[in-house]
């Protein structure tokens, strides 16, 4: 392990010195980060005393080539080297590599690997069907890593106060979901909370023309109010279908989502509403017990500035399973029965102190119907402009083993991260 770390560190230093020398320090930015997460939960994972021990060098580089200047092209690269002790591996990954340009005065385009985000939710997503990394989120990595990049083409058209975004994603990328290796979860095939014993296959849809995912958003501003319409054609990002229960094969069924959102100033804060109809295209009638049912997700959110650098954000989400009677009829003996409605609330408290160098926050998910809770307290301190230390925890609790956060009870952790920005 020690030899490995030395090799990595020298490789990282060489790369850093090289990039700075070649491109100039002004244009290359990024950070070194060390992160450690102490596991407080069960012993079902591959390693049981911790679930994060890693060093990361992340660098980004922006380049504006002096050609076709009318199009104002911009090349952006962000990559990282991750020395991950948990997985006993060193990975080099390109997080973003894309080119943005403006072919017409009213059109922007971005091609390549990119992070895509839209919608009004705060850590809750209704019409944002872009891939997420929940493992990173639950073990205490930076919030940035909740979003996974997509290899995509995004074209935006702007007319007065109205704009249209169309995103085409030719290569399907699922969420990074919990599969028992690092985090334990309720394995529906094994019927209990499992860790490394859980061993299933997850079949992705093949990369064919027909399988290209399309996400679109039409939005308009009415003064300070923003209204959006969304449409998505693609696949569930979670493995919501079982192809072969005996063989333990999951897959990502087809999904269409249609929705809207409205967001704007409301009373003393900012309010928003977002709704999405999830059309489970392979099980429209809801009779197939192996494929997720269609659903409607309703989300309402409100944030308020309480003064003194303290803000609060509240959200309420209601998920309604459609064709519930068919779902109940289709169940077999021994299947656990899900509720027709799932209610979920979130609270975010954020406080800045000491000249805004200390950021304290608490984010809580609570479901009264699932009777489970997930708390994310954190404190971070910027010792200098370049050095930031973060301390936080991920605490789960629930009455039942099979609910979203209840199944996570064995994964409680306390983590710390030290980041040096350059």
């Amino acid at each position, binding site marked *: 392990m020690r030899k490995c770390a030395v090799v990595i560190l020298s490789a990282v230093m060489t790369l850093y010195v090289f990039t700075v020398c070649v491109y100039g320090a002004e244009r290359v930015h990024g950070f070194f980060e060390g992160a450690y997460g102490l596991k407080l939960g069960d012993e079902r994972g591959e390693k049981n005393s911790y679930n994060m021990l890693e060093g990361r060098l992340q660098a980004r580089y922006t380049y504006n080539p002096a050609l076709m200047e009318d199009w104002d092209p911009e090349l952006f690269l962000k990559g990282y080297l991750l020395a991950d002790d948990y997985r006993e591996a060193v990975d080099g990954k390109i997080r973003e590599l894309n080119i943005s340009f403006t072919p017409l005065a009213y059109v922007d385009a971005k091609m390549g690997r990119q992070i*895509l985000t839209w919608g009004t939710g705060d850590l809750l997503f209704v019409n944002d069907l872009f891939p997420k990394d929940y493992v990173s989120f639950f073990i205490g990595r930076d919030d940035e890593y909740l979003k996974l990049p997509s290899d995509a083409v995004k074209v935006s058209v702007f007319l007065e106060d109205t704009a249209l975004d169309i995103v085409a994603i030719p290569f399907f990328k699922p969420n990074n979901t919990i599969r028992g290796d690092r985090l334990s979860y309720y394995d529906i095939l094994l019927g209990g909370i499992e860790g490394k014993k859980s061993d299933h296959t997850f079949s992705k849809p093949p990369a064919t023309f027909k399988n290209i995912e399309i996400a679109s958003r039409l939005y308009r501003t009415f003064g300070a109010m923003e209204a959006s319409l969304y449409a998505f054609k693609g696949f569930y990002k979670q493995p919501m279908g079982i192809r072969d229960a005996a063989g333990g094969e999951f897959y990502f069924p087809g999904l269409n989502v249609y929705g809207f959102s409205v967001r704007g100033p409301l009373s*003393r*804060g900012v309010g928003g509403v977002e709704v999405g109809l999830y059309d489970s295209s392979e099980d429209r009638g809801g009779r197939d017990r192996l494929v997720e049912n269609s659903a409607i997700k309703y989300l309402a959110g409100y*944030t308020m500035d309480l003064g003194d650098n303290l803000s609060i954000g509240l959200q309420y989400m209601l998920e309604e399973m459609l064709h519930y009677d068919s779902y109940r009829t289709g169940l077999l003996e021994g299947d656990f029965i899900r509720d027709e409605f799932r209610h979920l609330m979130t609270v975010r408290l954020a406080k*800045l102190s000491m000249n805004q*160098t200390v950021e304290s926050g608490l984010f809580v998910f609570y479901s009264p119907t699932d009777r489970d809770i997930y708390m994310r307290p954190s404190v971070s301190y910027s010792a200098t402009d370049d050095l930031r230390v973060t301390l936080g925890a991920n605490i789960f609790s629930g009455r039942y083993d099979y609910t979203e956060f209840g199944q996570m009870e064995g994964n409680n952790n306390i983590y710390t991260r030290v980041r040096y920005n350059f």
Partner: protein
Amino acid sequence: MVTIRIFRYALPLLILLLIPGTTVALTADEIIKKASLVYNYAGDDGVARLKMRIKDRRGRERYREMTMLRKDIEDGGRQYYYVYFHRPADVEKMVFMVWKNIGKDDDRWLYIPAIDLVRRIAARDKRSSFAGSHFTYEDVSGRNPEDDEHTIMKDELLDGRPVYIIKNVPKDKDIVEFSYYVTWIDKGDFLPRKAEYFDKARRLYKVFTVEKIETIQGIPTVVKIRAEDKGRGGETVVEFEDIRYDVGIKKSVFHERYLRRPPRQWIR
């Protein structure tokens, strides 16, 4: 340009001479209103690079660098601000946008490039610190003259220049942290030269000093200002560079499109 300036100064003088027996004395309200126009609404739009050095009470320094775009919708009224961060490295490419409103809360947006997120920020509190500095949001975009009662305390010389000294008492005491503040306003160019803020116990706690003024495109412009925290210690010095007025920034720049893709025409 020169003829215009002659008229600007000559005309009031002429009127003064033509009306015998009247002395044209500006009221405190008029002075503050004029100062606000000169200080916050110069030109129809403007762009500048801000360099901010923040020192805490223990002398530790932090450094912020940003490009600020401004567009006035009406003089003395609504304005749009777009602030693009260059430094520190961890907030590089972050954009903060404000639609400054009169008589209701501002609208604020924050763009976080790492996750391509456009966030709406609830903006009740204009008196909180801007980017961790000793300037509040209101110090950056300007306090509405209507929010205070103004009285002239006296006329005086400051560094050899005649100034008005004006006391400003907030109409709504509950939403601000000061009980009153005093501003020194130059009688020539109407730019503020100094301001002193007094807390609820009427103790001096914050001093703003204009340290450098330059004439840019014919407009006298504050290019260096210092804010000192007299209560807890610490200070912030802001320097404005590459200031340009009336560059033709379109209203459409202050929308989501340019949060995700900053207008490189002005931001390099």
